[in-house]
């Protein structure tokens, strides 16, 4: 039997893939603590993929069956009471006290909707003006013609802090609540309870317990773990209540708190996403110690990350899926990024990309300028800290900066690079064979040449000091016979998986090129010449500022041997293998406050439309996961 959470996941899956639409009400139900929001503009999408074609898919049959309690009974998603004229918004967020997750949607028929959410019980609402339903940890909140499914979980740190305060105030010792350790050791609750019983002592309940409003008598007889469960439950109710008050009494929600998010909701596209990295950073679990030990430094780093928000639009076009996103950042980070990107496209890399190359990327950064700018911003920030560990590290960084020849380092490794996939080729390997004496059947080992198919890759780095890698290779060749100077290039035997040689070309056209493609090293040491990348793709790479990537999906998937992937990956990839198309990533100039990225997935060959293409993929993944 499928449990409730599974049913809601299926419900969500159903409405996500059906792509709902835009009145404003569902947008007003997103809590301000949401840091990630994915919105689907149903009206726009349903013009491109009809609901009738969506519900034909195999994955939809089960979604609908689960939504209507085991039997679809000729009912489809269209009968779920969802208003397809409003957007669907899926969100997740966290702050110092709790995590919040859920989704918002429009309602066309409350009666039909409640048949889907039939295990939610209507209860008295903590605030006025809403209808309120509960099912274990999930809450369904209805306001007007919009619904919010909400879950609030107090953070582990907060629950532990409150529980420990109460526990110790009662005269008990410190409890090692090593969550990760107990998970690793596979301890069940019973084991934990037994351990805690041993250290449980009687204690008086003092004023600290009032924080969670727990029953003092109940608290006295609880084990640490029972107390922790009670604290979790009380905090959960408290935080939920605070969110509801904030949203429905004070009218505070993400849309009216973040102008960029509000603006994003007006975009005319099929879907949007919002990611507030600055808040993600602020509340990241790993930063708790950092925040406690170095509060001033944390404040400065937080300021550095302020305004770090990614906003993206998803367009479903006739022959493509297009994703456009803007990465926003604050003033100081913007200065570093601008310096990093203050470089020209290194045209010589085009010479090492074959015109028929199925996949490649180019990456242009000025590492020297970026390093200097980052040094000027971050070192003063760290220097203010008086902690001996930070001070020692700052001193080390400053001394290294003074003593090392940073010009030589950044001339050698300038930062710009490229990479290519050169297809699959047969490479010679050595293998051992047992050979048998014809008279006695005694056997001995004999080395013979073998062949294996290998994907060929090339990476190259812009360099102004090719003499330095040349020097390193030269010294290495004196230490081991695996490094061989072949004149125009270096050969390093058994470099890949102890079996395949790697070739290094240092200094040609101001590039350090490393490849396992013997043909490139021997026959095209100076590049592919007239066979090198030119035309539209070359122009796009030059035009795209700090990064460009191109992958011919059909060709790459056809060329890479199936053995490279697991059986499961192959089953999903099989859905794409018959299709043709390419993915292109382009970027625009980095400004002081943002950089734009575009990812376009163009379909070619035999297909009806991009929506069907996408649904085919989703269906393949679903059938595979069954």
């Amino acid at each position, binding site marked *: 039997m499928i449990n409730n959470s599974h049913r809601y996941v299926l419900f969500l899956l159903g409405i996500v893939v059906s792509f709902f639409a835009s009145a404003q009400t569902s947008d007003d139900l997103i809590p301000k603590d949401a840091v990630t929001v994915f919105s689907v503009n149903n009206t726009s999408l349903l013009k491109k993929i009809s609901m009738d074609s969506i519900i034909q898919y195999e994955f939809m049959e089960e979604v609908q069956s689960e939504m209507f309690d085991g039997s679809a009974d000729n009912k489809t998603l269209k009968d779920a009471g969802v208003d397809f004229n409003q957007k669907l918004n899926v969100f997740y967020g966290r702050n110092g006290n709790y995590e919040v997750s859920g989704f918002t949607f429009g309602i066309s028929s409350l009666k039909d909707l409640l048949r889907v959410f039939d295990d939610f019980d209507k209860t008295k609402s903590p605030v006025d003006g809403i209808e309120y339903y509960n099912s274990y940890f999930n809450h369904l909140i209805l306001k007007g013609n919009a619904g919010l499914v909400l879950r609030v979980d107090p953070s582990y740190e907060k629950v532990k802090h409150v529980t420990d305060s109460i526990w110790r105030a009662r005269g008990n010792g410190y409890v090692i609540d090593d969550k990760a350790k107990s998970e690793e050791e596979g301890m069940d609750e019973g084991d934990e309870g037994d351990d805690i019983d041993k250290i449980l002592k009687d204690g008086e309940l003092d004023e600290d317990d009032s924080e969670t409003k727990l029953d003092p008598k109940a608290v006295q007889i609880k084990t640490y773990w029972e107390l922790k469960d009670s604290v979790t439950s009380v905090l959960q109710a408290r935080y939920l209540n605070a969110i509801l008050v904030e949203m429905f009494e004070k009218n505070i929600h993400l849309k009216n708190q973040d102008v960029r998010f509000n603006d994003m909701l007006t975009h005319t596209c099929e879907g949007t996403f919002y990611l507030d990295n600055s808040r993600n950073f602020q509340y990241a679990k790993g930063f708790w110690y950092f925040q406690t030990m170095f509060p001033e430094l944390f404040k400065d780093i937080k300021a550095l990350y302020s305004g770090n928000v990614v906003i993206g639009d998803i367009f479903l076009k006739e022959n493509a899926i297009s994703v456009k996103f803007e990465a926003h950042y604050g003033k100081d980070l913007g200065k570093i990024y601008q310096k990093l990107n203050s470089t020209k496209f290194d045209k010589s890399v085009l010479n090492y990309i074959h015109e028929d190359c199925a996949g490649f990327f180019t990456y242009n950064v000025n590492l020297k300028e970026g390093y200097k700018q980052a040094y000027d911003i971050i070192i003063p920030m760290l220097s203010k800290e008086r902690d001996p560990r930070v001070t020692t590290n700052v001193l080390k960084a400053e001394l290294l900066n003074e003593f090392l020849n940073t010009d030589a380092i950044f001339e050698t490794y300038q930062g710009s690079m490229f990479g290519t996939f050169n297809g699959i080729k047969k490479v010679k390997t050595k293998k051992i064979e*047992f050979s048998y004496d014809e008279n006695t*059947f005694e056997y001995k*080992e004999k080395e013979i040449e*073998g062949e*294996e198919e290998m994907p060929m890759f090339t990476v190259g780095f812009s360099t102004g000091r090719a003499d330095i890698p040349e020097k390193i290779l030269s010294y290495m060749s004196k230490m081991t016979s695996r490094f061989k100077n072949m004149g125009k290039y270096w050969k390093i035997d058994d470099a890949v998986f102890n079996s395949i040689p790697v070739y290094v070309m240092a200094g040609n056209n101001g590039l350090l090129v490393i490849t396992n493609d013997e043909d490139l090293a021997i026959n095209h040491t100076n590049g592919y010449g007239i066979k090198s990348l030119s035309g539209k793709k070359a122009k796009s790479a030059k035009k795209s500022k700090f990064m460009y990537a191109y992958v011919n999906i059909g060709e790459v998937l056809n060329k890479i041997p199936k053995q490279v992937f697991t059986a499961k990956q192959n089953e999903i990839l099989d859905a794409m293998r018959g299709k043709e198309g390419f993915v292109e990533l382009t970027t625009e100039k980095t400004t002081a406050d943002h950089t734009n990225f575009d990812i376009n997935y163009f379909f070619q060959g035999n297909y009806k439309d991009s929506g069907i293409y996408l649904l085919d993929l989703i269906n393949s993944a679903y059938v595979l996961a069954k």
Partner: protein
Amino acid sequence: MVSCVDIVDDIYIKSDGTGTFKYSVNLSASKVKVNSILALDSLDGRKVPSIPEIKEKINRYKEIFSQKEGMSNVKVESDFTNFIFKFQCDFESVIHLQKALKDFVLEESKNKNFKDLETNWLDWEMNKLTRSIPSITIDFTSKLKKEDAEALKTGKYVCISRFEKLVDKVENSSALISPNKQAVMIKTTPYALIQNLKLLENTIYLTENKKP
């Protein structure tokens, strides 16, 4: 993919029933694939052991086997460049050898219900050796992915029986008797063996005479 694995199963039985058993696994033709797997942390949800961990396990197995009754001169050669592993031991009788192998499998395997362990794969009477191979030899192959099982078609499995005395005749028609009449060899592929374990079943009759 080229030949993936080359296995040689070689037993030498002297007239008094003592002898030497050798088992060699040659993965050199698949060393790129083996190296690429060793570079991973896990594969299909199972942890991939590191080379030091494999070495440690091999040494432990060697120690355990050395302590088995009737076993001596236990040697293991491991070549982690070409991935060739050779096991060799001397035995007092084929009964000792079988018991040592059975005990070892039962002690080291999580599965304690090998029905096949009740049967004997080696039976030595004066001038007659009856041999087969236990199904546990190929048990692991049932978990192989289809394409990996297919690749075993290019592998080799060679079963050799050697004697002090001369071979008179053999029952398995695929078996070759060496020109010096002191060895019998059956060649097959691991894939064929998975399909039919009886391919290596054989009864070998010896003459009374040792080689002049």
